[in-house]
């Protein structure tokens, strides 16, 4: 088989190829995954074993299809932590193998440890799995690029739609774990920003117990109406339950007939298997063909991260980490990710701007930012913490 390999000439921000026969430039991308998989209330939503990394694998294929025209070849080095493993050491091991770019699906604290462990070696992390705002604010790092949306972006995306729909009176139910409280905080902030009112707030205590039992439904059917009765007049119940303890039990079981949003019902996400607009069907088909399952938000975040690296490497026609990262962080970088518009990085905290999908588990109900929410830089900056409010100091 004759292999045509192409060299490259730079011409006015465009690259042109002419025939040349050399070995392709190798670009290794690391993938660092947290231990374990979070159990969900719904069996349907239980993440697959390869959740996230499957998206990165598709992106590596996409990068290599492009790479064959540019003499670049991408590989994915997967590293999965076990319980008790040190994320810093795992990141350092990847860096030892000369990996300059690591896609990370790690909890916030592990992510920071991993980032700090490889910072002096010029290795950058692409945060695909942590939505904590603090990673982009007081705990921001120059070597962490955030592809996952933040809690505040997700909450704002949802709030804009609820306000547009004139469902402005919210009953907020918050779980008893830290991440539930963080999501509730983001929802309260969104309500204030966009003019919704939280008419009542309740905490749903996690008293422990199994998520699946043989006669669970009967109990839940009695429990949820009682929990939501005697509420002041409200339009929608908003649940903050990232811990998957109760939110999915709420739809159709509230005392008053009201819709549910937040962690169940209408859910804000970066991606959904039902997303079919803006050429997304091609992405969904490509993913399904390779993985025999549907593409989740985490898969898409990992795909986008690996594509960002591939895109930057193709634009600068280089595998040099500094050249690639400088371009990624610069004003000319943008990425197409089937969201109907280009996605760019917020220069002040390296967060990827992106529309937020509102999904009900079967369909995409709407996509935020909603019409009429205006911004002088980008309407995508109506979602999440904006530059004037940022606590991030890059150094």
């Amino acid at each position, binding site marked *: 088989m004759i292999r*045509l390999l192409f060299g490259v000439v730079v011409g006015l*921000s465009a690259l*042109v190829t002419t025939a040349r026969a050399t070995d392709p430039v190798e670009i290794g991308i690391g993938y660092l995954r947290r231990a374990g998989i979070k159990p969900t209330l719904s069996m349907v939503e239980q993440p697959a074993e390869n959740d996230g990394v499957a998206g990165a694998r598709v992106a590596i294929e996409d990068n290599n*299809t*492009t790479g064959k*025209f540019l003499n670049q070849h991408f590989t994915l080095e997967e590293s999965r932590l076990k319980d008790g493993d040190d994320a810093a050491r795992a990141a350092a091991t990847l860096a030892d193998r000369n990996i300059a770019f690591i896609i990370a699906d790690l909890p916030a604290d592990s992510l920071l440890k991993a980032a700090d462990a490889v910072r002096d070696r010029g290795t950058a992390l692409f945060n695909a799995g942590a939505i904590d705002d603090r990673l982009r604010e007081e705990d921001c790092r120059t070597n962490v690029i955030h592809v996952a949306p933040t809690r505040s972006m997700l909450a704002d995306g949802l709030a804009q739609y609820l306000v547009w729909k004139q469902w402005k009176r919210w009953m907020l139910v918050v779980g008893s774990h830290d991440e539930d409280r963080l999501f509730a905080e983001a929802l309260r902030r969104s309500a204030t920003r966009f003019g919704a009112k939280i008419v009542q707030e309740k905490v749903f205590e996690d008293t422990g117990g199994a998520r699946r039992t043989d006669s669970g439904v009967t109990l839940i059917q009695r429990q949820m109406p009682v929990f939501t009765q005697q509420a002041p007049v409200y339009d929608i119940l908003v649940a903050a339950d990232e811990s998957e303890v109760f939110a999915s039990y709420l739809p159709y079981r509230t005392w008053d007939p009201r819709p549910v949003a937040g962690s169940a019902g209408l859910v804000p996400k970066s991606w959904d298997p039902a997303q079919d607009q803006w050429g997304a069907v*091609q992405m969904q088909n490509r993913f399904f063909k390779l993985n025999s399952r549907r593409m989740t938000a985490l898969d898409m975040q990992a795909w986008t991260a690996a594509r960002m690296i591939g895109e930057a490497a193709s634009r600068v026609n280089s595998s040099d980490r500094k050249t690639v990262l400088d371009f990624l962080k610069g004003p000319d970088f943008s990425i*197409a990710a089937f969201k109907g*518009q280009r996605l760019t990085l917020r220069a002040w905290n390296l967060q990827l701007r992106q529309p937020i999908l509102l999904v009900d588990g079967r369909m995409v109900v709407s996509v935020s930012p909603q019409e009429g929410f205006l911004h002088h830089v980008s309407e995508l900056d109506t979602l999440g913490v904006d530059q004037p409010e940022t606590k991030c100091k890059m150094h």
Partner: protein
Amino acid sequence: MWRHCLVSGIAVWLAGALPAGAFIAYVSNEKSNTVSVIDTDKWAVIKTIKVGQRPRGIEFTKDGKFVLVAVGDDDTIQMIDTATQQVADTLPSGPDPELFIQDKAGKILYVANENDNTVTIIDIERRARVGDVQVGVEPEGMAISPDGRFLINTSETTNMAHFIDTAARQIVANVLVDARPRFAEFKRDGSELWVSSEIGGTVAIIDPVTHTVTTKITFNIPGMRKEAIQPVGISIVADGKTAFIALGPANRVAVVDAASHQVTKYLLVGQRVWHMAFTPDEKFLLVTNGVSNDVSVIDVAALKVIKTIQVGELPWGITIAKQQ
């Protein structure tokens, strides 16, 4: 030179003397799974033809006997007989065909298969697949150089225009353009290739000899956010002086001085303007407006929108020819 002026003068006079509507337009409606047939004399839909699922790319065969329409979700290209205005046959296009182009003689069809990273080559008369070329991720835009030597394919996720030698059926050059290149169009004299980048928001002007981007057309509409300006369809008039570029959700068609590559005017049309086609006399340009479900008619000389015609849901592609 004198002879050229005389000939075009006669052509203009002839076109002026004939009724405007000796033409017929076929519009693919992506969501309705139909094709609307427009009589350009009446500026009205005279027939709606049921086709396969998700019709997009649409073009008359060179002999005018058929209209080819890519029905992506049925993985085929249907042939509408223009005499009976019914689907008469199909072509083996490969999976998920979107856009396609014929060679000059109208014998060979080149099809972009989005799901497959390939361009499929079809012998139209034999209705047979005769080859394919591997290209970048999500091939879409297709063009042929006026001399017939090079086929251009744009790949949406690879962000390149691939130059394919039509004789050897091999890629000979790749030109990197801005994000999500959707459509490619040569100037009729072959001097320039124009490629629109939907997400990048630009149109690259490529020198087909050196394979370099010589300049990029950018768009700036006061009060319109940058992300909403998404160039897709391109039409350049035969004399190479003026070009029209559909700007998608910006709801406008940009009029461009094709020599200086400067935008001279923005014409407000319907919502999410997508593809376009001239009437054969180039007096009118018809553009499809996906979200408003209509077609805008632009008077090319006056640079004005003169008419809006309601068609099916999500109109996508359009092709126009003389009435048979």
